[in-house]
């Protein structure tokens, strides 16, 4: 790499640091949109499941699928093994369905969407116009397009660039539309990666999911643009339960990004999502998440409970998946994006930055299940803890007897800011094939006074110094994000650590 290039990349850090100063408030997405909503009655039961299904005009098989999940869920109990503590959730005290009244008749195009909703996305910096340039995102390559599916509480408000994508054979639409318009695809794949019985939250999701995104990339197609979904929780006392299903056929390729935010409220709100990725022979999915749900205040009041099940199934030989997550938000995070490496020579990667500040708790990691021969996986996890936060990496690497010549490399680094926070690493490893190898490295370090003073003696403010040090710590993961989002993520890293020192 030449010096010229390195400064272009390096410049990112300097700009990040600028951004910290310009952002006055800590959580800038905390506003609420005042809009007329239609709610299902509070609580969950078979009637609610039926109601949600009917709101989406679903076929009978979908309803049956939901009901069987619901009946199963009723017999299940919440998992307690994660290192997170929160008061018991009253699942009957939540709204499971909320949609803006203006969305009862889904608008024909984005131009017909309620201006209040459009204004909300504008305020969030999410481009809903079909323009090449990413509005408000610095460093976006000229002419680069990002298609967006915008999910507001329980429904998708609209999806951009659908026509252009369709010309390439790509289907990108909301989950509710997919069930109506492409039932054969949904029926074939839904629940095949994360079965409806998988775990408490996934089962609940299977019963009550209201919308989400659906992507289908046909054989040999390289998706012509970045796809993304932006999740917004707005309504009070409402849970968001969405499902994402992405199918990459033989040799297909796609890069997908999801973002999420919510208003600042004193009550906790539940977000329980399911994401399923199906990757056939020689196909490649890159899935990035910038999770910025409201984290609650300094005293741990409010914030989102983020209980998410994400899994990728590398079904074909040489299939590839890469999960990248930047987790800065949520009061409690419970999330383990996983890879099933079924095809021979398939590859899974997981890059994670999890930042917890104040009273936040995160228990996150991945599972790499090596089934095929010569399968490879790589895990790079960077946990950053400040305030009184607790941050746990929990991961499983499992190499099955038939997975000859397989490899895993895991690196788990924790960074502590201050002495009241905690970092924990819980790696489970099982290698049942003699020709395969698992490598694990873990470090824990502190942002120390010497480093801070060194930076400040050179003229940086305390915030600038922390941002620089933390971005340095997380660099490897930030670099795995698409360029324009890497910059956003760097700023986010800095902002979410405001007030963590001094």
């Amino acid at each position, binding site marked *: 790499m030449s010096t010229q290039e390195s400064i272009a990349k390096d410049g990112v850090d*300097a700009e990040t640091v600028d951004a910290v100063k310009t952002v006055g408030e800590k959580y800038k997405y905390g506003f609420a949109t005042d809009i007329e909503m239609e709610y299902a009655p509070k609580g969950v039961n078979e009637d609610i499941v039926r109601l949600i299904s009917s709101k989406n005009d679903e076929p009978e098989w979908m309803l049956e699928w939901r009901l069987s999940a619901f009946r199963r869920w009723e017999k299940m109990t919440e998992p307690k093994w994660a290192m997170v503590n929160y008061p018991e959730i009253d699942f009957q005290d939540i709204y499971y369905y909320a949609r803006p009244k203006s969305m009862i008749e889904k608008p024909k195009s984005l131009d017909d969407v309620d201006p209040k909703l459009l204004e909300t996305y504008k305020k969030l910096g999410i481009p809903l116009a079909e323009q090449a340039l990413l509005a408000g995102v610095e460093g976006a390559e000229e002419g680069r397009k990002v298609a967006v599916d915008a999910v507001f509480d329980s429904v998708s408000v609209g999806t951009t660039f659908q026509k252009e994508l369709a010309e390439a054979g790509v289907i990108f639409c909301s989950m509710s539309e997919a069930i109506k318009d492409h039932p054969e695809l949904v029926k074939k794949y839904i629940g095949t990666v994360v079965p409806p019985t998988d775990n408490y939250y996934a089962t609940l999701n299977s019963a009550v999911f209201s919308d989400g995104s659906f992507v289908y990339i046909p054989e040999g197609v390289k998706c012509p643009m970045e796809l993304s979904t932006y999740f917004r929780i707005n309504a009070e006392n409402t849970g968001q339960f969405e499902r994402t299903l992405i199918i990459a056929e033989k040799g297909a390729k796609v890069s997908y990004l999801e973002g999420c935010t919510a208003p600042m409220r004193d009550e906790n709100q539940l977000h329980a999502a399911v994401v399923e990725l199906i990757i056939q022979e020689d196909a490649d999915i890159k899935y990035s998440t910038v999770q910025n749900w409201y984290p609650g205040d300094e005293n741990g009041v409010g914030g989102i409970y983020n209980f998410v099940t994400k899994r990728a199934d590398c079904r074909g030989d040489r299939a590839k998946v890469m999960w990248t997550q930047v987790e800065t938000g949520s009061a409690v995070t419970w999330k383990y994006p996983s890879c099933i490496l079924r095809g021979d020579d398939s590859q899974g990667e997981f890059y994670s930055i999890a930042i917890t500040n104040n009273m936040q708790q995160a228990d996150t990691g991945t599972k790499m299940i090596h089934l095929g021969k010569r399968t490879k996986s790589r895990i790079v996890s960077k946990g950053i803890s400040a305030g009184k936060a607790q941050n746990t990496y929990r991961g499983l690497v499992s190499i099955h007897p038939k997975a000859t010549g397989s490899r895993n490399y895991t690196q788990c680094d924790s960074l502590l800011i201050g002495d009241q926070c905690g970092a924990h690493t819980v790696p489970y490893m099982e290698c049942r094939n003699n020709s395969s190898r698992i490598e694990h490295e873990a470090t824990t370090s502190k942002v120390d006074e010497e480093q801070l003073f060194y930076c400040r*003696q050179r003229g*940086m403010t305390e915030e600038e110094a922390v941002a620089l040090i933390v971005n340095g710590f997380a660099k490897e993961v930030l670099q795995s994000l698409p360029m324009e989002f890497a910059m956003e993520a760097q700023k986010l890293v800095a902002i979410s650590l405001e007030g963590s020192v001094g």
Partner: protein
Amino acid sequence: MFEIKNLKASLADEDKQILKGMNLSIGAGEVHAIMGPNGSGKSTMSYVAAGKGGYVVDEGEVLLNGANLLDMEPDERAAAGLFLAFQYPVEIPGVGNMTFLRTAVNAQRKMRGEEELNAAQFLKIVREKAKSLKIDADMLRRPVNVGFSGGEKKRNEILQMAMLEPKMCILDETDSGLDVDAMKLVAEGVNALRDGERSFLVITHYQRLLDHIKPDFVHIMADGKIIKTGGPELALEVENNGYADLLNEVA
């Protein structure tokens, strides 16, 4: 220009005073050297002046162009023109040396209300200055001080000093652990910055650095105070006889 007046400072955690009434006055464009036995408080003096935590100022002032540095945050002191070349520069993993420099330069410019340098302007200046210190592109790209040799770390400090263009430079044992060639590079780097306005305080144990950076005054520090001040000949005396005679003289 730079004045330390009756400075008394203690450790914050222990009831132990390290600086016990230190006085020093450095005029614009002057070079002063401080010598003194290990543990006499030389580094502490530089840390207290620069605003490092862990110390309590019991009494006194540190003035830079009339402004009391002790009232300012460390970054404000830096922007006011104080630079400290550390005795032990710290490592910052993952942060490119160049990124660090640019962030620092622009942070100071911003604080002073000056326009920030863009990537191209910055690159041009840094390349020029790095070259004269024999710092190559690789060293600029590597994370700050990570895996640097002792000599590389010290040259890197001088590069930062050259980029930040401070008014008052304190060099804390920048020559310690350097071979003759590296020391010459450092000395040349410092001399290149002498412009009749910028002042230097060089903390050292060795005459050989002062052969290259000619001091106007030499001070001997012991037990938290300056005990003797003289011209360059004082450094030679220390070199030949050690501190014992000087300490006895005062005692």
